[in-house]
């Protein structure tokens, strides 16, 4: 067949070619419209999308300010830490290596699986956090397994560090990721989700001062989320350093003196209300909150029967025992029932309202004047005084000295304590006050229970003649520097007669310096005044703590101030089940006062410091 030889009429086919041409033209027109629409009409929109694809901003967390003691020593610091994350685009290969990851990083495989599961529904640019605060071993493991485990990355993050660990843990508090509740509150209106904020103590109260301004890094990433270049970065602004009124040396002395006993200690300057030391035991280590604390660890802390999270200095109330006798004395003197030469007779016990009330000394103190009653803590003397005063007068003066009320300290969760009165009993217990109950209150038992901080403030206030300065951890100067105002009134006044102050102070001096119950608190040359207290453990407590022999012991108190004539430091120490106040609590106050006194005398003689430093070396000058 020779195809060339056909006679053909091409007219018909030719007539159809223009239609093919029209079809071709319309194809090109459609496509032209397509690129016109995308590139010219909607260019802006797509440029934005392309930028969003390309550019990722990551926050650079600002380190919080340091927390310093009154002399500038560091209490809370920051340290850089590495968090190990995995970029999600490399998931499949890494998910097959979970065993290697688990053994290499000493992690639970189940935890890893749940972590991968948790992130499955979250946006893919969020890296999965595998391990926080990784150590050198982890780092070298990652470096040596880069090829098998693609997508692993270390992110630096400033982490809160508490170099003194449990020291002043309750006062300093701890930090954590902001909670929903905190976010909703006005207090944290400057925070955003994911922020690390103070959760307790000073960290929380002064969060705003301590918080820095987060920076931001704009980076170019590729489609796998890998950082290709840094476009722009705004460096974070470190938070302000906050100077506390705490004196690290006094704090250390108190912590050391406490040993492993439970209880609380607080020392403050009665002239200003500045807190010099605050101890609560048992304590916790705030470092463990600095990284995401595990649920198990948290539950252990919260459910610990010893309650290590409780700040016993301000959040717990205890029967004051004989410490309360000082407030009885104040009431008696102010009311004119007592005078300096008033005497009573102690036979070792007394019968009142058909019940026998015992003194501490079985054989009795014999004839005692007011001073002897305080120095030797004679119960019978105060039973009779209590009967004469009646509960409501006692309550009036005790409340005047700030008992049963919050002090207004700048720490969260302060307890009121309880100073009972007949009106209180009617209101709360819906019952009348029995006169017999006054007798228990007279020696600091029964309903009365106080927080260590209000007791310390009251003693300091007594020394100043009735001026009760509000305790605080940040000086008003420092607060002013950060343009903040104190949240509470700076003082309350409850004027006491000069003779009252003189007489009570004389008694308190005797307790320490005349071989009274508190002689172990004495600091030679410093005229320490104070009162011991020993309160019986309430019967209901016995059941809970039956496991430990310790916990049957009496609670020990010592509250005092020094020096006698112009008080500079006041302190309250409470030792749970410590036994007698004079044995368990007074030595702790002694330690704090001794350190204070040593520092004070040293600073007056500046040479002494250099002498001790150069001990054994011949002095040149």
């Amino acid at each position, binding site marked *: 067949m020779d195809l060339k030889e056909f006679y053909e009429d091409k007219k018909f*086919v030719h007539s159809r*070619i223009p239609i093919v041409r029209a079809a071709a033209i319309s194809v090109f027109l459609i*496509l032209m419209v397509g690129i*016109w629409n995308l590139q*010219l009409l909607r260019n802006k929109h797509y440029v934005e*999308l392309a930028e969003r694809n390309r550019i990722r901003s990551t926050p650079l967390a600002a380190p919080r300010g340091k927390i310093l003691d009154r002399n500038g020593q560091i209490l809370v610091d920051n340290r850089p830490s590495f968090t190990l994350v995995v970029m999600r685009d490399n998931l499949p290969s890494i998910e097959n290596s979970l065993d290697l990851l688990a053994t290499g990083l000493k992690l639970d495989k189940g935890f890893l699986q749940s972590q991968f599961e948790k992130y499955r529904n979250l946006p893919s640019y969020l890296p999965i956090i595998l391990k926080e605060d990784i150590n050198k071993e982890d780092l070298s493991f990652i470096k040596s397994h880069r090829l098998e485990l693609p997508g692993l990355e270390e992110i630096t993050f400033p982490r809160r560090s508490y170099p003194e660990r449990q020291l002043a843990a309750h006062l300093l508090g701890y930090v954590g990721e902001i909670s929903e509740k905190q976010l909703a509150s006005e207090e944290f209106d400057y925070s955003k989700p994911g922020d690390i904020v103070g959760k307790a103590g000073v960290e929380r109260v002064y969060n705003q001062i301590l918080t820095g301004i987060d920076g931001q890094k704009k980076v170019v990433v590729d489609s796998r989320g890998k950082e290709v270049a840094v476009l722009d970065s705004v460096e974070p602004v470190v938070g302000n350093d906050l100077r506390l009124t705490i004196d690290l040396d006094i704090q250390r002395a108190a912590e050391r003196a406490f040993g492993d006993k439970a209880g609380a200690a607080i020392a403050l300057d009665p002239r200003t209300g500045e807190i010099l030391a605050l101890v609560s035991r048992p304590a916790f280590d705030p470092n463990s909150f600095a990284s995401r604390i595990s649920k198990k660890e948290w539950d252990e802390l919260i459910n610990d029967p010893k309650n290590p999270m409780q700040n016993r200095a301000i959040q717990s109330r205890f029967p004051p025992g004989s410490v309360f006798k000082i407030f009885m004395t104040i009431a008696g003197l102010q009311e004119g029932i007592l005078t300096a030469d008033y005497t009573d007779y102690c036979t070792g016990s007394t019968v009142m309202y058909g019940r026998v009330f015992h003194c501490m000394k079985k054989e009795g103190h014999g004839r005692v004047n007011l001073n002897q009653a305080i120095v030797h803590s004679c119960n019978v003397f105060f039973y009779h005084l209590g009967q004469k005063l009646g509960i409501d007068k006692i309550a009036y003066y005790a409340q005047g000295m700030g008992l049963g009320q919050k002090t207004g300290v700048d720490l969260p969760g302060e307890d009121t304590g309880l100073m009972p009165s007949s009106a209180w009993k009617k209101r709360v217990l819906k019952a009348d006050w029995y006169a017999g109950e006054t007798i228990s209150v007279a020696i600091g038992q029964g309903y009365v229970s106080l927080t260590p901080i209000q007791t310390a403030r009251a003693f300091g206030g007594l020394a100043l003649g009735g001026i009760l300065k509000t305790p605080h951890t940040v000086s008003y100067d420092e607060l002013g520097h950060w343009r903040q105002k104190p949240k509470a009134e700076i003082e309350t006044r409850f004027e006491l007669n000069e003779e009252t102050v003189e007489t009570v102070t004389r008694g308190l001096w005797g307790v320490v310096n005349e071989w009274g119950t508190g002689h172990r608190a004495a600091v030679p040359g410093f005229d320490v005044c104070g009162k011991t207290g020993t309160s019986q453990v309430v019967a209901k407590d016995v059941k809970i703590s039956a496991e430990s022999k310790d916990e049957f012991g009496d609670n020990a108190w010592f509250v005092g101030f020094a020096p006698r004539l112009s008080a500079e430091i006041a302190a309250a120490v409470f030792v749970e089940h410590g036994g007698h106040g004079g044995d368990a609590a007074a030595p702790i106050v002694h330690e704090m006062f001794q350190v204070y006194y040593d520092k004070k005398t040293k600073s007056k003689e500046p040479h002494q410091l250099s002498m001790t430093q150069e001990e054994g070396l011949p002095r040149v000058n």
Partner: protein
Amino acid sequence: MFGKLSFYIKDFDWFIFLLALSIAVVGVVEIHSATQYNKGDRFYVKQIYWIILGLIMMVVAMSIDYHTLVENVPYFYVVAVLALISVLIMGHRVSGSKSWISVGGTSAGQPSEFVKIAVVLALARFLCEIRTEYLTAGEILKGSCIVGLPVFLVLLQPDLGSALTFVPIAMVGFFLAGLKPKWIVLFAILSVLVVGLGWYNLKVYQKERIYTFLEPERDPLGAGYHSIQSKIAVGSGGLWGKGIGEGSQTKLGFLPERHTDFIFSVVAEELGFLGAATVLCLYFFIVTRSINIALTARDKLGIYIVLGAVSVILFHILINIGMVVGFMPITGIPLPLLSYGGSSILSTFIFLGLIINVRMRRYVY
């Protein structure tokens, strides 16, 4: 001999040759740009080799009188069908379908690209032998079988996209030979039925592609990703483009299959609307030039060959660029002359060679 050479120089279509070469050069530049951060294969160098080989094939395809080629078309057709069958038996899978033949362990190409050439020639021969205006039912059936056998074999791979590229050959061929309106209506009804029935036989990934085409944002990181990223690349190119090698979508790897199926996205992103429109115009000139060649062809056979080749090239352009700008679903159909790939480059140059072949023999000597 000298006369022969002057015939080549005088009647060779320099216009189409230069248009095609410019597109191919743009392709090489943009393939280089799209793969500059790839390790291993240097695709643009390979593409240059393919283009050189393609030009040689083009010269071969235009040198042998198309009448001679068509005389031998039964052999081509049988070889083509056997090649498709061999793909089904021993081809290896590339992204879900068996459409590649491997020789000695390396991919040697997609035979379906070359099968189209045989089908164009076979259909041209069949249609030019028909003397009457308008096709009869029997003729339509026979013609459909010529195209339908390879389509069926390609569908078995299964490669829906490639199978579809055969359809315009038949459509254009039948249309030129004359289709009565009732047949057009029948084809319309039939295609609706095929689409309906075919839906149930689609693989999950194929259905997914169609869903995603209709609404890419429903799965922006999954199946819709390609379409969205391609539109972002094209759209963000703007009027002037981001510059060669500067396309962020390309460079940072957001654009998938960027040196093959989505090469036009790269062009649009880096060269902007001006570049993309220029490339579109180059294609347009090739197509209109070819249609003019069909008008001046010596015989109906020439017309059928040229317009068969045009229909294949045009359909590829429509599907590929339509996909890039989001008008068409995602299919693995390359863009002639621009996409990286040996089979596509070679078959396109052979088609262009056939078109030039017809032009060179437009006069009866």
